[in-house]
């Protein structure tokens, strides 16, 4: 998302998510290449219309979780069988059932922290990051379709503008971000 070189963007704002979805359907039919779509809240079904691949965060989550499981279980096993074996209440050194609560907690902890860090990293979001926004109402009540017009011909830009106005965009503007 965060590119260093500036990008010329033509965008249209829609007042309702149904207008936005209809517009994207038209764009798909006309083979217009939408650069990005911005919405104030998660719109159901948008990812299918935009042909997004399923997020792989859950796979990362599984890996982080498994790391937590192994870390906790192997560490406790090492401490109580190799490093400093102590008998507690006449139980065996390697008292597996007693390790389960901590193993579970660390699985959850590693998975949650790992996934949240991954999520912000792949999104390019972090404290202090500023990504220029196209319009202040996009996080309020406007639904935005943006085209990248870097190197686009005047005719292409005209087509994009026609598309935005005929699909009911209430505001059409361009911006360099």
């Amino acid at each position: 998302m965060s590119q260093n070189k500036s990008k010329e963007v033509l965008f249209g704002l829609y007042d309702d998510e149904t207008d936005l979805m209809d517009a994207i359907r038209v764009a798909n039919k006309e083979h217009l290449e939408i650069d990005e779509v911005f919405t104030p809240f998660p719109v159901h079904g948008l990812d299918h219309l935009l042909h997004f691949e399923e997020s792989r965060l859950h796979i990362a989550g599984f890996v982080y979780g498994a790391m937590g499981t192994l870390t906790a279980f192997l560490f406790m096993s090492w401490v109580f069988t190799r490093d400093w074996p102590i008998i507690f209440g006449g139980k065996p050194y390697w008292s597996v059932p007693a390790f389960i609560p901590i193993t579970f907690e660390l699985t959850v902890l590693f998975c949650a922290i790992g996934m949240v860090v991954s999520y912000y990293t792949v999104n390019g979001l972090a404290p202090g990051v500023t990504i220029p926004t196209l319009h202040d109402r996009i996080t309020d009540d406007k639904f935005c379709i943006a085209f990248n017009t870097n190197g686009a011909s005047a005719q292409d830009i005209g087509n994009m503008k026609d598309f935005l106005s005929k699909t009911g965009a209430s505001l059409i503007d361009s911006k360099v971000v």
Partner: protein
Amino acid sequence: MSAVVSPIREPLITGSKTYHDITEDICGPTERAPGLLWTIAMALSVAGLATFAFSVFWTVYFGIGTWDLNRTIGWGWDITNFVWWIGIGHAGTLISAILLLFRQKWRTGVNRAAEAMTIFAVICAGQFPLIHMGRIWLAFFIFPYPNTRGPLWVNFNSPLLWDVFAISTYFTVSILFWYTGLVPDFATMRDRSTGMRRKIYNFLSFGWTGSAKHWQRFESLSLILAGLATPLVLSVHTIVSFDFATSVIPGWHTTIFPPYFVAGAIFSGFAMVLTLMLIARKVLHLEDYITLEHIESMNKVILLTGSIVGTAYLTELFISWYSGYIYEQFAFFNRALGPYWWSYFGMMACNVLSPQIFWFKKYRRSIFVTFFMSIFINIGMWFERFVIIATTLARDYLPSSWSYYVPTWVEIGIFVGSMGLFFVLFLLFTRVAPVVAIAEVKSILKTSGDQYKGKNAMPHHHAHDDHGHH
């Protein structure tokens, strides 16, 4: 929208709101100067916090001998308060995680504040084990770190250590979950503001733009975090109950404790959510977002969990008799008719009998009744922990060591003061962050707004008819 909503469900957002109205209504209170009520509440809370700080200082300086705990009753108000606060800290994650998995739309109106409450309650809960250690400057000994004493590790077989892991994990995951939901809403606040305020919210919103790809990842993350938080929330109070259940004290050594504690935690957590939300909706004018429908739903959860708790109390009594084990029988006889009989009856009245009023729809939808019930339940659940802890310890195996315990002003100061800590944090939260999850409420508007469903619904209503273009 393709989501299917049963036609008999009542609307969850009233007042024919548009998306922009939602932004205005929820961001508005944070952009205006605080009202008189807020200022008074803050002053009282700061006084509470000062009491807390002073009492803790007293405890640390003179030692926990200032609490009048004795050889027989080694756990008094401190652990009672710890379990009480940690129980309250269960509703937020239950609402945001378990109800997300169950696709309960009413969660969206209350989840943000409930999660904030969870985090602040866990902060309060965490104070008590730390203070209770006596030598608080050595509190880091509870973590397994390589040390020069061998290294000598902590006892991984001890439920008290499981607690350390459970509560710190719960606290971390709750904060991550809460903040991830706050980021898009902070972006909304950023885009409405100018100057310094914009800079601050820009920092807090991590540069959120509302990109469709980000939202897709957001939903994926929320779902998995909810999936993780669900067993986590159940595990935390299970492990807290292990502190008691794995001991060999009659009255504590029972297998019913984990489910009974979890139900009690949800019960008390919802009561505290109701106490806070009934005030917040009035003071911040959120009646259109936290409706009677929300309150009724929470009262249903209270009725269910209250009845589970009541059943558990009776099961305990029955089993202690049925076990034929005289020490167990004595422990329960002593709970109900011993020196602390009043706390047992307080617990029974507040937790078991009084919630039964919620079988009646009229009372489930009454704000007055709900508010008083929520206070009763908070008191009752405190009594429950006191009954379990102090009553059980007061009469142990040796009649010669039987004892009675009354808290000193220091312990009372710490407990009352911890509420000051809690309310200071909560009141600050209402000033700096949206109290209702803006984006989530917007996402249910088309299926649960009163202009789209219910008896006031207008046919073919479009959200953009209501305000001008910009």
